[in-house]
């Protein structure tokens, strides 16, 4: 990580094709961590929507954005059935999703730091920004 971080600002990696390096992609674990987190978020939205269908209009578009995040890190679209929603009421479900988004946004900062490839770091910063926006959007939902 330190080597990549030290070299990148000098632009020496520009034009260096990752496919020319016959080593496992060091970013694979970052991508799979993000994909797992996004799948969990998608599942949490799915169970909240099934428990509280009237929230679908608000939650559906946010879940779609998590699907975009999942695609961006090369995650497959197969989704887990999702945990049964244990929240007691729509308000509690929204609070739980808000908390999950804030955790995700914080995780994206750490994953952005861990990423070696510039484009992945950039994408993870944008994804974290999106998730920070989701937390605000959820906090403003009237139940």
């Amino acid at each position, binding site marked *: 990580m330190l080597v990549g971080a*030290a070299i990148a*600002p000098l632009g020496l990696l520009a034009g260096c094709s990752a496919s020319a390096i016959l080593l496992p992609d060091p970013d694979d674990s970052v991508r799979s961590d993000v994909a797992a987190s996004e799948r969990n978020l998608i599942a949490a939205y799915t169970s909240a929507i099934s428990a509280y269908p009237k929230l679908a209009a608000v939650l559906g578009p*946010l879940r779609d*954005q998590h699907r*975009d995040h999942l695609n961006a890190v090369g995650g497959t679209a197969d989704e887990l059935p999702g945990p049964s929603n244990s929240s007691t009421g729509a308000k509690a479900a929204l609070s739980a999703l808000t908390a999950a988004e804030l955790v995700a946004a914080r995780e994206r900062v750490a994953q952005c*730091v861990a990423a070696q490839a510039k484009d992945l770091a950039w994408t993870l910063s944008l994804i974290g*920004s*999106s998730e920070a926006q989701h937390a*605000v959007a959820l906090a403003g939902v009237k139940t």
Partner: protein
Amino acid sequence: MTEPILLASEELLSTLHGEYEAVYAYGLIGAHLSGAAEERARKALATHRQLRDQLRTSVADTGTQPPVPAAAYAPPTPVDSAATATALAITVERRLVRCWSALASSSTTDARINAARTAQECAVRAMSWGATSQPFPG
């Protein structure tokens, strides 16, 4: 004096220009708002001034003379009402999410944490102006 061996990255310079633009824009924005919205613009202006100063220091630390701001920045659409002022605030914050994220991708660890967090703060500020969330803000 030794020759500067480090140069400010393109991302650092374009984020500084983005913050110069934000400081200019919020002056304009605040002039068309009143009450709580004007206060929000004033707070955003103070935040962006701090970010601008922080970036000028970062540029200077590379041994590069920080560029000066333009005398004026033309908004993409005319600002003549509270609605157009608010729209400009959203545009400015969203653009800065892109700038700070690009800076995060080109920085070393500490600067990267700061840049990625700042990108999130700009994204949240866009929401405070009524923006809708985006999968990849900007």
